């Protein structure tokens, strides 16, 4: 069925390696999000699945067959482009119909399928318009309708929401999730927006510099980032990371000393640090797991407070000037600006530790 397999796929453009030895399995009916900063190779990976770019090395499988050498037109996938790529000279109806015409679907069946797709996306009244006569949101729907009009093995979506305004994006996000449930088809979705990734994906695959960093359900990736890149990339505001020196207690690492204080370390992680034999580690704490108050182990100064209505971002500086962000609920007491404060980590389990050399997560 709609399984997609990517095995050891590498893509080089001359000297540049866009995708580096990528291996990824997308299950049938899964909504997988390829997430990464621009230029990380996620779009190239998608284009290789579509058949628009050829891998330099590796194998791509769709459904039950290997398609590495199969032309895009014969791969049985549908793609939604960032620019929507609607055919400007064709009406909405002709646009949606085009994949069916290309596959020589009989006329009656075509009308019915176009009607269905248009119905699902609420385009019934727009079928005779040209793309230029549509709003951005409507164009996006036409692009989706063109993709779902036949039932392909998989949908490939390349940043389909990035050209919509913020409000419409939130709405369409939810609609896409609903559409996925309704169609029960595999979706591979490329985005640089971590909110889209967190809210839409069954699993997220995070790419950086062409290499896969971590794959997993959104919550798992958020809670246990595999390395510093993922830790800093996922979450808003980003995770606070500070390099500290390990403090040894009775036989194993007890805490990490950072400018202005010490952060305690769970015993099993302390043991792992001891096994690694490093003197320094990178400490990561998410902004919502920090508290500001009159007592706490770390000395800091509040610099600026940003109120977002439902929450506050308290920008602090450690004694050496490194920035740290604390996220507060709106009902918590407001700290004084430009005043000394003390920071506490809520629970010792919420401290993430990374090897500064390999940037990998240190696990107990």
């Amino acid at each position, binding site marked *: 069925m709609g399984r997609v397999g990517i095995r050891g796929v590498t893509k080089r453009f001359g000297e540049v390696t866009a995708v580096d030895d990528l291996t990824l399995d997308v299950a049938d009916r899964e909504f997988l999000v390829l997430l990464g900063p621009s230029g990380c190779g996620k779009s190239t990976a998608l284009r290789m699945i579509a058949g628009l770019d050829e891998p330099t090395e590796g194998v791509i499988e769709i459904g039950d067959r290997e398609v590495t050498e199969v032309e895009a*037109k014969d791969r049985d996938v549908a793609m939604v*482009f960032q620019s929507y790529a609607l*055919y*400007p000279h064709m009406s909405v109806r002709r646009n949606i119909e085009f994949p069916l015409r290309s596959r020589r679907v009989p006329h009656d069946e075509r009308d019915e399928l176009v009607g269905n797709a248009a119905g699902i996306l609420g385009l019934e009244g727009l079928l005779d318009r040209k793309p230029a006569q549509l709003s951005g949101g409507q164009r996006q729907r036409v692009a989706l309708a063109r993709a779902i009009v036949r039932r392909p093995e998989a949908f490939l979506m390349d940043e389909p929401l990035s050209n919509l305004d913020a409000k419409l994006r939130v709405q369409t996000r939810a609609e896409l999730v609903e559409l996925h449930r309704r169609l029960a088809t595999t979706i591979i979705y490329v985005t640089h927006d971590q909110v889209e990734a967190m809210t839409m994906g069954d699993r997220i695959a995070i790419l950086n510099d062409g290499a896969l960093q971590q794959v997993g359900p959104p919550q798992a990736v958020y809670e246990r980032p595999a390395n510093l890149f993922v830790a800093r990339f996922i979450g808003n505001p980003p995770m606070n990371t500070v390099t500290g020196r390990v403090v040894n207690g009775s036989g194993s690492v007890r805490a990490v000393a950072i400018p202005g204080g010490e952060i305690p370390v769970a015993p099993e992680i302390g043991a792992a640090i001891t096994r690694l034999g490093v003197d320094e580690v990178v400490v990561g704490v998410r902004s919502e797991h920090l508290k500001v108050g009159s007592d706490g182990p770390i000395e800091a100064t509040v610099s600026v407070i940003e109120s977002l209505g439902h929450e506050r971002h308290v920008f602090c500086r450690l004694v050496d000037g490194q920035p740290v962000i604390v996220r507060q609920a709106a009902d918590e007491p407001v700290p004084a600006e430009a005043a000394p404060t003390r920071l506490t980590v809520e629970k010792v389990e919420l401290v993430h530790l990374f090897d500064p050399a390999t940037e990998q997560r240190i696990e107990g």
Partner: protein
Amino acid sequence: MSATDVVVPRTDASAGVSTTVARPRRFGRRVREAALGYLLVVPSLLIFGTFIIYPFFKNFYLGLYRNPPFPNLPKKYIGFEQYTDVLTSSDFYNSVKVTFLFALLTVPAGIALGLALAVLAHQRLKGIAIYRTIFSSTIATSVAVASVIFGTLMNPQVGLLPWIGLDPRPPILENPEWALIAVAITTIWQNLGLSFILMSSGLQSVPDELLEAAEVDGAGGWSRFRNVTLPLLSPTLFFAAIVGSIFAFQSFGQIDLLTEGGPLDKTNVLTYFVFEELRERNNPGTAAVLAIALFAITLVFTLIQMRVLERRVFYGR
């Protein structure tokens, strides 16, 4: 609103001043802007008037006079008689036929070949720039050079044909069935560079993403060309058809150099006919009538093309 408000006359002094002073000022500015506008148009109007409008009416006027059979006799005013004489003659009819045939032979084939080469050269391949240069090179060739090249190639003594063992009798350029085709081939070759460049620039404006979308949508190479490339290229094709037809109607050099209108008037296009009447038969009156006819035919044909073809042209998004 009360009744007094309506009947009270306006006595406000400042309001009166503003209406009496502001209006002439605005009027004055408009006059000055208009004057500047006309001043800027004057140079092109002068050129246009001297080389287009005046000759056009002069031509029309010349057509009303019959030239004497011998020089130095006065020409005779005969009104529209010369127009009817020339425009109903079999020579004129033949010349119109040859002109249209020539356009039909050169324009569609020229566009199709230019497009074919442009599609071939529109690949991301190593060394493709060399082919682009070769394909567009004829744009640097004059009609005279093209005619000499092809005239030599088709020459029965020194040409390509005897070299490959062919010796058509009569020689191609003297063969009533082949002469026009030979001139047409020369013309197509000479215009190919321009056609190629035009079509290449048109192809550049077709977004790659649309072709990729069509590919994912299951369209093969021909379907992508037919359903995406061609419609988006239609403004270029339309332009090429209109301009190409006008060029074809005005072709002269290759006829003069290769066939001189012969054999048996089979290549006697209207421009050449005009030239013959004027230079060889020394008959400015009939030449003027023919020139006006050529203008009218070009105009009408262009308008028809615009009506028929433009409906199928897709402009912009």
